[in-house]
């Protein structure tokens, strides 16, 4: 019994310790973001890496998500004669949930893992120490560009994902089931509010910042050589996934009242 309590206690302490350290890193990132000089070149490089390079995989995921949403809702809703509503379901699901969350998960797998591995390797090969000896703040040089790019590029990718998902839904509803094209688009626009889109983008922005912060944190504080880098990468992906899925619930409850 005592062992169980001890174990739970150690988990809570670890959680509090890690949360605290991530928050400290967040504050120092925000501080370095404001202070000049600005890392324009690095920011653009990271935007390309996190944003542009993720476009193909985001597009593929989005189109199939839109397609499967249409497939399931069409066949399901047909049972009670509501198949005309597929356009609305696809549009609302994509903009409010699937767009931001799936994009977040994909960017975690692609860019988050890469960030943790890159920073982790830089840590264990003393490149981060070398930055300091060259009078360069490593948070400013390494973390600020990734954090900013995450927060900016995830909403941009989500917009793409929303659009392509809805097109995916169209392909199945109209192309496969032969429903009316005009009705699909009317249903998309009838129930879709601007609020759905920008609340989805607010979530995406939060996810993007979280992924970058968590992945950089895990990489930045890596220790223990190659094994440590592996652990940091896994840790970054797992923690980012959990953060996205858990915060998604609370953000949704708060934003979509």
């Amino acid at each position: 019994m005592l062992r169980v309590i001890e174990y739970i206690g150690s988990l809570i302490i670890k959680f509090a310790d890690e949360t605290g350290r991530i928050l400290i890193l967040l504050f120092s990132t925000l501080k370095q973001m404001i202070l000049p000089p600005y890392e324009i070149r690095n920011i653009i490089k990271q935007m390309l890496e996190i944003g542009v390079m993720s476009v193909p995989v985001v597009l593929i995921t989005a189109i199939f998500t839109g397609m499967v949403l249409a497939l399931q809702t069409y066949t399901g809703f047909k049972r009670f004669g509501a198949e005309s509503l597929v356009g609305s379901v696809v549009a609302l699901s994509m903009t409010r949930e699937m767009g931001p969350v799936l994009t977040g998960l994909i960017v975690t797998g692609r860019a988050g893992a890469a960030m943790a591995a890159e920073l982790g390797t830089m840590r264990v090969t003393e490149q981060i120490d070398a930055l300091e000896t060259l009078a360069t703040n490593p948070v400013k040089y390494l973390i600020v560009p990734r954090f900013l790019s995450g927060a900016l590029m995830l909403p941009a990718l989500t917009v793409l994902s929303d659009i392509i998902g809805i097109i995916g839904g169209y392909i199945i509803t109209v192309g496969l089931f032969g429903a009316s094209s005009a009705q699909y688009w009317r249903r998309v626009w009838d129930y879709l509010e601007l609020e759905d889109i920008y609340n989805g983008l607010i979530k995406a922005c939060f996810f993007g910042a979280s992924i970058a912060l968590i992945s950089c944190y895990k990489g930045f504080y890596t220790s223990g050589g190659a094994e440590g880098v592996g652990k940091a990468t896994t840790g970054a992906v797992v923690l980012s996934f959990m953060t996205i899925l858990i915060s998604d619930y609370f953000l949704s409850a708060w934003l979509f009242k």
Partner: protein
Amino acid sequence: MIRIVNVHKTFGANHVLRGVNLEIKKGESMVVIGGSGSGKSVLIKHIIGILKPDSGDIFVDNINIVNLKETELNKIRKKFGMLFQGAALFDSLRVWENVGFSLLRERTYSEKEVRRIASEKLRLVGLAGVEDLMPSELSGGMKKRVGLARAIAHNPEILLYDEPTTGLDPIMADAINDLIIEMREKLSVTSVTITHDMQSAYKIADRIAMLYEGKIIEVGTPDEIKQTENPIVRQFITGSAAGPIRIEGVTA
């Protein structure tokens, strides 16, 4: 020039530095020797302010760097150049961008000028025509040379060498030793080297200090060290497994 006063540092349960005192004079070449895990790297990282001591003071040109703000500390850091054990070159940058890193960031020179300066520093460490290579394309010895070129790019007054000969073949190691001596003669820098390679220590040192169990237990010229009465230092410099030094994880 550098004065380390009663520095303590603990990592978790590991009390690494236990009151280190050491003075390094302007222009001299100080070599700190000690076994693996004795805290040599930790000590050198304190000198340049990457690590902060739990207690104690570190003076560089009579300025205590322990509680300096980052901008102030960065001014001090510009007096230093450091060569890391694994060279710590930035993987994503070309050789010339690595060498000119601090100059590119200061933006006082154009890119073209930085490239020219980088080539010049590379020539000084015996490399030519590698400017556009990536670090992954270099051999271990070349990486160390590039690392050294990067360390001297901003004309520092003090050079720190973290195990400069470790991981190199004996001939390459000796070439690096010669380079360290050459740097001192050409650039008249003060240098601090940490190593466990005694051949290297004798060759490059004006004075040698031995770090053992978190303290400096002896300081002297290479000749004085060679003739030391201290059994711990004796054992270390002769490289014998038998003696007062405990080998970690091994019970006698």
